[in-house]
Structure formats: structure tokens, C-alpha cells
């Protein structure tokens, strides 16, 4: 979410900290702030507001949080409105999914393109300017986090009905998208027309520059219904993002008054109806018993009890001895642990020392024996020269259609079945190694294989193994006491769950360089002539150092030959290079073995 510093300062006039510090402080108290930038002379922050803080999806809530943190006064920007009209709007609410709606009619408007300040505000928020009336509704949504809507009464009429859709088959949104409706959709309609979704206005009653009369409304709904509607219609809007959070119905009058005053100031006109306020079940907030010793106990550092009370006061809680009643804005505070978090975060996580880790304590080993088995098997296979690979647990095609488990919603068409065997994936791994001309592959994987028996899903641990030399594979399996059949060429697979398990096993630590191959391995031969016989291993080490490890995959001596005429020794090397093109590999090769 974007936040303009100067708008924040309207709520906290004494807020003067440097943008860098504000960014860091916002992050430390739970609103991760990536960066700030300058847009049209405004400093704009980019924040990640977490799903439990619907109140901070607007400047109002965020400013309340910061005023507590910095202990600075908070200024309410909204002023009361008065309506002298006796006219009662013919609005109906027929669904319990509406928590609160406030609405009124404003007539004799003079709509126009937006003033510069409003256009800049919306630009900083990544929104396009439409016209003053529409832009003001968006401004209020960003300011208070409460979506709202303005209907052109010339198109919508006044008989607005909040209802679960039962009559309309389709809806055209403000951007012209055609959405197919059913009876689970919460809507605002008139008797003849679908006007608006709960989270998206409709084209049929859109405000334009000719609009002279409007009905504005601010509403909060059952958030689950909005969330389901948004998903069902595959439509996410700034409004749906907010309405599916727990918003504060008590804040509606403040935002409503602010919007109404702004419209009157910027578009002229008069309030031409009574204020409609549907609020069947006003918010009731329960007090939470709070033990003031707990912030210290939970954090592990001393937090004075007075500090907790001070924080609760600044948050706007009602305090009655040890009973704390949070403000209605803070829907995330419902239990004692929530109050503790408030105290600790405002006290400052950075005050908790970082150098006091737990020390050893014997609490009993609950490691499942199969973990020890897997770790010991891995170490034995490594000792035998096998490399460990990991392959995709989801695969393209089943081994056995009757027992395969299919995923319902995988978006990857190449990965819809849970693997029943490791072998097909290891075969793909071999194909890949073959493509890269990797010599002498020998590798293994230990992983889950899956199947279905009736309604039960079965998971088993399996070992899949490949060796380029089949007889060596059989020898190695014998060494590991693994009785299995070679399945396919040089592959073997065994379910390891029933093997004898070690009581305890401490695995070896290994740090090695795995390589991401980007091209084929290039093998090149070279002969060198020496006067005396030398240990080929010493020669391998010598030339390896000359070439360097960055692109040398392997270096071997393939032949040693003594010329009977000269008595000199010819050593034939094969050097394999990786992640190089042919030309560069050849160049390094010729230079190393002095073949130029």
C-alpha cells in the first residue's frame, strides 16, 4: 500500500521524523516498508499491511498506530454535517450481510475534472483520476480504508436495495467487464437494474461530468461474503481487498462526514435527504482481563507495568482496573496475547537482547527412527560415490492409473499426479545428464512415493538409485544389504520403511560445490611428452591447478606410453570443461598443455 508522508502529517501534525527513520519505525512496529520515493514532490512509502490490520489499509488507522508509537497527538480531520432535509431516501436492506450503511443524496452538483492536489494524491496511489466526485470517493477510501460509492441518481434512481442477487444474470462493471451472476452475490440494485457489487461499481449508474445529483453510500459487509464473491467472480479491487478484512463500522460516520463535506466543498450542491444509517447490530466490545506482569514474562525483559497502561491509554482503550477494552478500530485485539503484543511492539523489539540463545537441555529424543535410517543410508551412498538428487514429487503421468493420486487444482500441467515411483523422475534426470554429456553418472534420491488405497492416501519413503555400470550397482546394493531387483536398465528402487532402523545416528556434515550446468561438458584430449616416468595422479593435480577449478569438470590420464625409440613417456590426458563454449574451452586447453 502507498502512503504519502504529507497526508499522514495531516493526521499527526507534529510528525517530523526523517523519511528513512519513519520507514524503519513503521517496519519495526509491524508494517514492513520496502522503500520510499518522490512522486511529484511528495514522499511516498510502499508498505506491506498484514491481513490482521484492516484498520491500517487507510491513513487513519496507520496514523493512529504512529501517534501511539511516537506519543504525538492525533488530529481528527472529519467535521460533522447537518441535513435540514426531511426527505427520507427509499433505501432497503434485505440481507444480513450488511453490517452498516450510511447514505445521503446530494443535489445541484457541479462535477468537473479533479483539482491538482487530488490528481496528485491518486497518482501517488497508482490510480487514475476520473472526475472530482469519483476521485473524492476513492480519496476517502484511501484515507479511512472504507470503500464507498456514488450513484448518479439520473441513472440509478433512488430506490436502492442491498440484497443477495436473485434476478440479474449479469453485471457490467465500471471498467466494462461483463460478470456472470448467481444468487450468492451481494449487490446493490434498484427494482429494475443491477447497479453495483458490494466491492465494485457498475457501468449502468456511473458518475460522469454531466452528473448533477448523487446518492453516496459508505458500507461495511460480512467480510466472508465479500471474499467469496470476489473469488467467485475472479475480481479483486481496492475495495474488495479492504472489505474482506475486519473493518470498523464505528468509523463509518467519520469517513461519511468527511466525504460529504469534501463533495460540498469541491462540487457545490446541497444535502437533499435525511442521513440514512442502517446499523442493526452495533459493535459490542468485550473487556479483556490483563495481567500486567505478562509483557515482561513473555518478552524476557523488564517492561514496567506503567508502560503497559500508558500504551493502552494512547491506543484509546478503556481501562477498568485489570479489564482492558480496546477501541473498536482495533479488530485484531481480542485476547490477552494481543494486548501483550501491543505492549511489546511499542516498547520495541530491538530492546530484546540477541545474544542469549537457549542452552542445551535434555528433553528426550523424539526423532522418528526412519529419519535416522534415511540419514545413514544417504551417508553410505555418498561413501560409495553416489550423488544425491531431488526431483519433482508431482509428475506428468501415472505409473498405475488405479492407485495414482491426482491433484485437483495444480496450475502446472506437467505436474498433476503425485509420483508413485522415483524411477521415471530419475530417468528424466539421466536424460538431462546425457544431454549435458555428463560422464559416468551415478546418483540416488530418497523421497516420498504416494498411492491411494480406497479412500486412504499412502505415503512411503523410497530409495531410487542409478549407476552407469549395472554390475557395480548390484555390488553396491549388496554392500548396503538392500535386496531389490534392477527395474529398468541401471535403475533400482526400494521402499525403505520396513528396513531395520538405527537407534540413533549422527549424520556427517558435508559442504561441497554443486554446479548449475548451463552447457554441455566439453571433453578434449592432449598428449604431453616427459623424459621420466611420473605419477599420473601428481600430474592430474598439477594440471588441475594450472587450469583452475572454475571451469574444469574432470581431468584424467587415459594412457601412458613409452616410446621404444626415444624412451620418453607420452601421457594422454582427457580434460572435461563445463559452462564454457567450444572456443573458450579449446583456448584454455591449448594453452594449458602447451599445444599452440
Amino acid at each position: 500500500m502507498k502512503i504519502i508522508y504529507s497526508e499522514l502529517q495531516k493526521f499527526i501534525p507534529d510528525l517530523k521524523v526523517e523519511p528513512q527513520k519513519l520507514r524503519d519505525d513503521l517496519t519495526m512496529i509491524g508494517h514492513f516498508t520496502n522503500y520510499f520515493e518522490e512522486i511529484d514532490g511528495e514522499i511516498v512509502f510502499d508498505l506491506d499491511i498484514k491481513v490482521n490490520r484492516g484498520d491500517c489499509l487507510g491513513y487513519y488507522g496507520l496514523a493512529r498506530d504512529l501517534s501511539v508509537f511516537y506519543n504525538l497527538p492525533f488530529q481528527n480531520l472529519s467535521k460533522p454535517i447537518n441535513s435540514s432535509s426531511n426527505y427520507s431516501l427509499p433505501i432497503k436492506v434485505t440481507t444480513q450481510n450488511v453490517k452498516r450503511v450510511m447514505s445521503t443524496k446530494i443535489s445541484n452538483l457541479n462535477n468537473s475534472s479533479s483539482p491538482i492536489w487530488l490528481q496528485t494524491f491518486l497518482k501517488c496511489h497508482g490510480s487514475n483520476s476520473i472526475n472530482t466526485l469519483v476521485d473524492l470517493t476513492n480519496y476517502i477510501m484511501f484515507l479511512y480504508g472504507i470503500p464507498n460509492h456514488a450513484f448518479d441518481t439520473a441513472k440509478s434512481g433512488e430506490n436502492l436495495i442491498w440484497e443477495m442477487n436473485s434476478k440479474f444474470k449479469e453485471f457490467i462493471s465500471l471498467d466494462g467487464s461483463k460478470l456472470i451472476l448467481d444468487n450468492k452475490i451481494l449487490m446493490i440494485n434498484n427494482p429494475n437494474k443491477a447497479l453495483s457489487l458490494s466491492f465494485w461499481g457498475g457501468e449502468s449508474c456511473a458518475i460522469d461530468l454531466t452528473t448533477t445529483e448523487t446518492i453516496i453510500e459508505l458500507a461495511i459487509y460480512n467480510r466472508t461474503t465479500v471474499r467469496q464473491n470476489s473469488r467467485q467472480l475472479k475480481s479483486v479491487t481496492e475495495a474488495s481487498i479492504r472489505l474482506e478484512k475486519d473493518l470498523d463500522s464505528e468509523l463509518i460516520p467519520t469517513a461519511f462526514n468527511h466525504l460529504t463535506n469534501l463533495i460540498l466543498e469541491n462540487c457545490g450542491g446541497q444535502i437533499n435527504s435525511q442521513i440514512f444509517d442502517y446499523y442493526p447490530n452495533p459493535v459490542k466490545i468485550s473487556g479483556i482481563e490483563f495481567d500486567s506482569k505478562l509483557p515482561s514474562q513473555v518478552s524476557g525483559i523488564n517492561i514496567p507495568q506503567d508502560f503497559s497502561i500508558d500504551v493502552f491509554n494512547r491506543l484509546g482503550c478503556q481501562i477498568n482496573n485489570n479489564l482492558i477494552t480496546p477501541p473498536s478500530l482495533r479488530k485484531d485485539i481480542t485476547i490477552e496475547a494481543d494486548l501483550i503484543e501491543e505492549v511489546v511492539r511499542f516498547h520495541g523489539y530491538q530492546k530484546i537482547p540477541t545474544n542469549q540463545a537457549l542452552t542445551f537441555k535434555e528433553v528426550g529424543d523424539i526423532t522418528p527412527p526412519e529419519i535416522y535410517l534415511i540419514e545413514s543410508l544417504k551417508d553410505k551412498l555418498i561413501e560409495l560415490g553416489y550423488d544425491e538428487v531431488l526431483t519433482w514429487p508431482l509428475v506428468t503421468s501415472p505409473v498405475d492409473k488405479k492407485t495414482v493420486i491426482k491433484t485437483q487444482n495444480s496450475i502446472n500441467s506437467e505436474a498433476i499426479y503425485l509420483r508413485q515411483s522415483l524411477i521415471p523422475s530419475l530417468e528424466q534426470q539421466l536424460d538431462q545428464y546425457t544431454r549435458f554429456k555428463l560422464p559416468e553418472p551415478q546418483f540416488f534420491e530418497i523421497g516420498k512415493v504416494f498411492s491411494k488405497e480406497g479412500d486412504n492416501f499412502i505415503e512411503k519413503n523410497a530409495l531410487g538409485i542409478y549407476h552407469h555400470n549395472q554390475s557395480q550397482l548390484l555390488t553396491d546394493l549388496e554392500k548396503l544389504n538392500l535386496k531389490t531387483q534392477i527395474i529398468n536398465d541401471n535403475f533400482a528402487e526400494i521402499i525403505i520403511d520396513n528396513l531395520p532402523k538405527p537407534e540413533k545416528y549422527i549424520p556427517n556434515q558435508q559442504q561441497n560445490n554443486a554446479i548449475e550446468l548451463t552447457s554441455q561438458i566439453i571433453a578434449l584430449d592432449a598428449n604431453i611428452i616427459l623424459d621420466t616416468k611420473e605419477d599420473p595422479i601428481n600430474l592430474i593435480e598439477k594440471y588441475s591447478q594450472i587450469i583452475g577449478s572454475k571451469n574444469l569438470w574432470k581431468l584424467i590420464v587415459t594412457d601412458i606410453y613409452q616410446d621404444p625409440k626415444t624412451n620418453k613417456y607420452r601421457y594422454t590426458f582427457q580434460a572435461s570443461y563445463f559452462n564454457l563454449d567450444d572456443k573458450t574451452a579449446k583456448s584454455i586447453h591449448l594453452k594449458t598443455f602447451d599445444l599452440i
Partner: protein
Amino acid sequence: MNQNLENIKTQYLKKISNLKTDKELENLRIELFGRNGLFNDLFTKLKEIPVEKRREYGQELNVTKNELERLIAIQSQKVQKTEIKKMNNLRSNIYDLPKMGHLHPITQTERQLNEVFRKLGFSVYNSPEIVTDEFNFERLNVPQNHPARDMQDSIYIKEPEYLLRTQTSTIESYLLKAKSKDLPIRAAFPGSVFRNEKVNRSNHFVFHQYQAVVVDKNVTMKDLIGTMDLMFKTLYGPDVVVRYRCKYYPEVEPGVGPDMQCFSCHGQGCPLCKYAGWIEMGGSGMIHPKVLEAAGIDPQVWSGFAFGMGLDRWTMAQKNIKDIRTLMGGNLAYKPNEL
């Protein structure tokens, strides 16, 4: 199918299966699909076919061409495998350094972390990968329709009940249930987790997380932060700078987010850290009272902490791997010996 094309197909099917070297295959490929190859000629002559038959013939021609190309590719793979086998069989007098086996980089990191926690008395734990909604969400304080569910896009086996676990916190659910009468607990669990992500260079549907959990009496945030810091210093070295901030996760409260100062820009802001100067390293916090209660553990008596982090990006950075797909199959390889 057109008889002439049928004959071509039959003739070349036999020819392809008899080819034994890459060079022979390449020659045949040029003969069939080169600039002056058979198929180029056939496509050129397409205009000579009567209009009413041209479309059908053109489609058959394409099918035949694709089929032969496919067969050549398959034969090429066979030939390469045979060549490698042959090469391996000719190795009786070859001098080489001893062959080494290698652990996968993810396993290496997991073992490194297991060792840190083993020394503190932690066990290693695991649980199924196909899980129920109850263990993946409900027991972790994420009821149906909670917006926190949007933080994870699940892969379902049988919606809404069965899914692939989306986080290692799910292992925590199983652990707490299994050991609720056997407290205190110290356990760590590496594991694969699944999200419904398109596979590309940066994202995968399966990745690896590491989680550690403590349930005991009088566990504090100081214990959590100190232990996490020990872990980060083990992984990244003693000079690593980590900050611990307030962060929301439904299964913990208070929640703690560890951020590591960006190793690329040292906090100045760069594309790697999205100009934040910090890199988010995972999530943690004191186990939420509702999570303990769901497991039958009295939060008035017992408390605990949990923290989790992803292993893939750290491992990629450590091994200079640029493509996440490399970690799961693909082109991850190891040098056969120490050079």
C-alpha cells in the same frame, strides 16, 4: 494417409532405427529437413497438388515431418546413452582421482541446521506431506475464509479437506498433537512444502522450509530471538546483521520477523532487496495460545516459540545457483572429485 508419404515414413522409420552415431543422425536430418532436403522439396511441390486436396495433404505432410523429427530425437538420446556406456567400459587403464559422492545442497543446509539444534537438545521430526485442512490451517489459528489463507495458495488433493502441506508449521500441528502429554518439546523439522505456483526461474511449486519449535515452561521472546540469532550466525557467519521486528503470522503471537541486512548493498537498498536494505528471512513468534489449546496444551502453564525459514534461496545464493528449477532435478551436478 497419402501413399507416397506413407512410403516415405516407412522407409525412414527403418533407416532411423539403424543409425548408431550422432554423425549418421545429423546427416539424415540434413537429408530430410535441410535446405535442399526431402521435406523442403515436398513443401515446394505442394502448390502442384489440386486445391481441393492441398489442405489435407499439407496437414499429412506436417504430421509425417513432425513424426520423423521426433523419432530422430529419440534415436539421438539412445545413441548418446550408448556412447557414454561404451566410453565407460573402456576405462580399465584410466588414472583418476577417487570418485566422491555428494549430498544435495538442500540436505547439506538441513544437516548444518540440524547440528545447531541437536547441540541444544532438539530432536528432528517429520509428518505426512498429504495433510488435512485441520492440521494445515485450523489448528494453526487459520479458520475457513480467514484472509490469512490467501498468504498461501494451496494444491488440493480433495478440496477442501485434503491438500499438500503448504508450510512446515503443519508439522508443528502434528507434533503438538502427538506429544501434548509428553512435554517439554524441542524439535526441528526440515521439509518440502507445496504451493500452487507456476514453475519458472524464480518460483516453484515445491520448496524447502526449516522450522524449530520449543514448548516448555517460561519460554520467552528473548530465548526465541537469541536462538534464531545463533542459527543465523552459524549459517551466515558471526558478522551477519539481523534485526527482529513485529510481524504477523496467525499461529504465533507476538510475531517476530527476522530480516537480514542485505549482503549485496549492506543496507543501502538495491534491486536484490527491493531497495529495503533488508531481506526477510522467515517468520517466527511465541506459539499462539489458540494453537496450544487446539493441541490440548494449557497455555497458562506452557509456552513456546516457533520459527521457520525457507532454505532454497539461501542455498541458491550460497552455491551461486540462478534458477530455482536447478535445485529440483534439471541441471544440478557435482564435480566427480576434488580438483
